[in-house]
């Protein structure tokens, strides 16, 4: 449903304008019941062309490998069976959301329903479809990961596919489109100044950086959330809660509380991507010592308490 939040233009106008139409969408199409079963049969037999198969939600393989935890209503067949039948018919296959990409939240805890992604089981290649699966046009499953996924990530992937402009080079090592995967959530985060000085929030609701105490891994998580913005310009960190790396495989099992940072000898275990540990330690201690009082005070306040100094007029 996050897809419906696409704006300027709306999702229907955007896709229609690019010549993209839905053969079927379970929440949006008129067709229901028998009409859908007949359509699926035509696609399976090859009588109806399927340019893109977009799947939301993880694929459940339980109980006991049968897939019966997730039956496609009215068909007597599991979603696992349907995906395996339809994927080879599709020009491209898209996993929409982290569940469909990697298993996601549905595979948290003991993974009670034996959930997998379309082509990944967590970090491991090979899910409902084989590791070597390629759709008709030669690409692996395109993982539009995110929990939720951004409506623009979905529509822009479709726009690029329709323009035949998305090739293997446009995907990162987990087959996520680079147009959003080449950024970190850290980029454009409004807490960047606090991060620079390691001026940390002690608890949720405070303005400081959430990396040191509150589980934020925006410096390691891929996504252009703080560049693009959500729902008119929001993001997790802008709303005062941490990035939990929801575009990544196995984000659902951080091995610690989502809003707490695991530490070893008082130092956060996870460091920013591409940063040598020694440099991080040296820079952190230096910048912490140099924290201006304004930033230090504001870090543990719920709103700006100390304003930036206004420069006096030059004499």
């Amino acid at each position: 449903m996050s897809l419906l939040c696409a704006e300027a233009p709306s999702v229907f106008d955007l896709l229609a304008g690019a010549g993209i139409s839905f053969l079927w969408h379970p929440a949006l199409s008129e067709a229901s019941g028998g009409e859908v079963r007949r359509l699926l049969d035509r696609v399976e037999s090859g009588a109806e062309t399927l340019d893109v198969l977009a799947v939301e939600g993880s694929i459940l393989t339980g109980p006991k490998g049968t897939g019966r935890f997730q039956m496609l209503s009215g068909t007597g067949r599991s979603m696992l069976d349907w995906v395996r039948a339809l994927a080879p018919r599709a020009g491209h296959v898209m996993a929409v959301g982290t569940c469909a990409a990697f298993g996601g939240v549905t595979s948290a805890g003991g993974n009670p329903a034996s959930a997998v992604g379309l082509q990944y089981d967590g970090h491991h290649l090979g899910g409902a479809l084989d590791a070597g699966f390629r759709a008709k046009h030669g690409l692996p499953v395109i993982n539009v990961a995110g929990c939720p996924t951004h409506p623009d990530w979905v529509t822009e992937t479709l726009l690029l596919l329709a323009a035949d402009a998305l090739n293997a080079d446009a995907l990162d090592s987990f087959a996520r489109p680079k147009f959003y995967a080449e950024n970190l959530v850290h980029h454009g985060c409004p807490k960047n100044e606090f991060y620079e000085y390691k001026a940390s929030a002690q608890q949720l609701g405070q303005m400081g950086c959430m990396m040191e105490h509150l589980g934020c891994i925006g410096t390691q998580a891929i996504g252009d959330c703080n560049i693009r913005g959500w729902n008119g310009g929001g993001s997790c960190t802008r709303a005062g809660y941490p990035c939990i790396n929801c575009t990544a495989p196995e984000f659902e099992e951080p091995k610690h509380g989502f809003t707490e940072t695991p530490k070893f000898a008082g130092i956060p275990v996870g460091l920013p991507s591409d940063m040598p540990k020694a440099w991080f330690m040296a820079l952190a201690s230096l910048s912490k010592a140099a924290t201006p009082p304004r930033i230090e005070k504001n870090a543990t306040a719920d709103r700006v308490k100390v304003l930036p100094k206004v420069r006096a007029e030059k004499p």
Partner: protein
Amino acid sequence: MSARSLLVGPFNRVEGDLEIRLEIEDGHVRAAYANSPLFRGFEPMLQGKPPLDALTLTPRICGICSISQSAAAAQALCSVAGGAPAPEGALAAAILHAVENLCDHITHFNLFFCADFARPAYAARSWHPRATERFTAMKGSAVRACIEARAQLLHIVGLLGGKWPHTLAIQPGGVTRAPTLRDKARMASTLTAFRRYLESTVFGAPLEAFDALETVEALRGWTTGDAGLFLQISDDLGLQRMGPGPERYLSFGAYPLADGRSFGPGVWADGQLEPVDSATIREDLSHAWMLGDAAHPSAGRTVPDEDMADPAYSWCKAPRLAGRTVETGALARQVVDAHPLARAIIAGGSNVEARVIGRLLEIARTQLLLEAWVAQLKPEAVFMQPVDLPRNGTGEGLVEAARGALGHWVRLKDGVIDSYQIIAPTTWNFSPRDANGTPGPVEAALEGAFVPEAEDTPLSVQHIVRSFDPCMVCTVH
């Protein structure tokens, strides 16, 4: 005499997966069996996790009722601590929650429900050209106006909650972001724009005028906007005579604020309003593919029967209040809150039309609530206060999702979640039979529905099912 059996699915324009088996005799449904064919296991998933993880994981049960799950989880944890959110934080949480509920209602009306009126099967009806122009799936002018207005209304969630769905802004002690004066002004502007959409499109008149309707006669006189079009269609198709409910209405009460719930809690049955006694809830497992005995959710377990043995036919448990089925949703909420129109339209029992009207009424009333809340929001106030969770204890979080009563029950042991049980609105409405053989509300509502020989996906059945606005992903979770 002719008898046949029909399997209806996939069921479009309901949230999630639904399959309904119908036994048909002489052109009418004799018995219906509602199957929720998806089991994911969020409840066992939460066992052993840090308590606050529920705030991250339970909203992800659903991409449409996400904030409702978030609010229920925060309230359940808060009740373990015996604490309370900062009053202004509760107000901000109510704004977030009400925006989601409002979005869900207009989505249901325009995208999920009314799309069926554009079907070729209704081509001979006088209203069909207009219904087609307004409601054709993904193309109708009302459909397009709806998603644009909805996306803009959700800017309020972007501002206060970072994103929709799956915000983590709502916490036991309040919300994570203190809105500024500027945020308040933006939210008020967004609401003004949304009111313009509602008044020019959905109602064709001031919201206050719809809220002021008190009688069935006054309602039948409403001709403007898509609400007027719906009433014309409903009259012609006899939607008032379709899909009777159990005539017992449950609401946990919506939007807990410092001075009480804005839509009051209660159970309306036999012309009486009684308080909700959540201790009398039992989840019956006789016809669910679940192992164990009927239990109150504080003592309940979720152990799927991997053999899927008969006579069970759904992953959905069957909640009962004091042993009986109840209907929950916007209509129930407005009936319990004693709105005169809601009480008037169910004088002869609930039905397809009444459920849609209940939702329209709540759209008008929720917009009015939101405007008042944003006006009274104090940016200088405290929006979060500490709530210290004990290592051991039990809690209950009762809220109202768009689709009705949502409850979370949690037990903490040694600092982690020992048990977590959820009953979602559609778990009530779409429950399977219980040990007494009593069908769930939608199963009962379908009995007697007219099914022409030629239809394999009967229209009457679709109208009845969608009138409840089921959210199947929440149902079994």
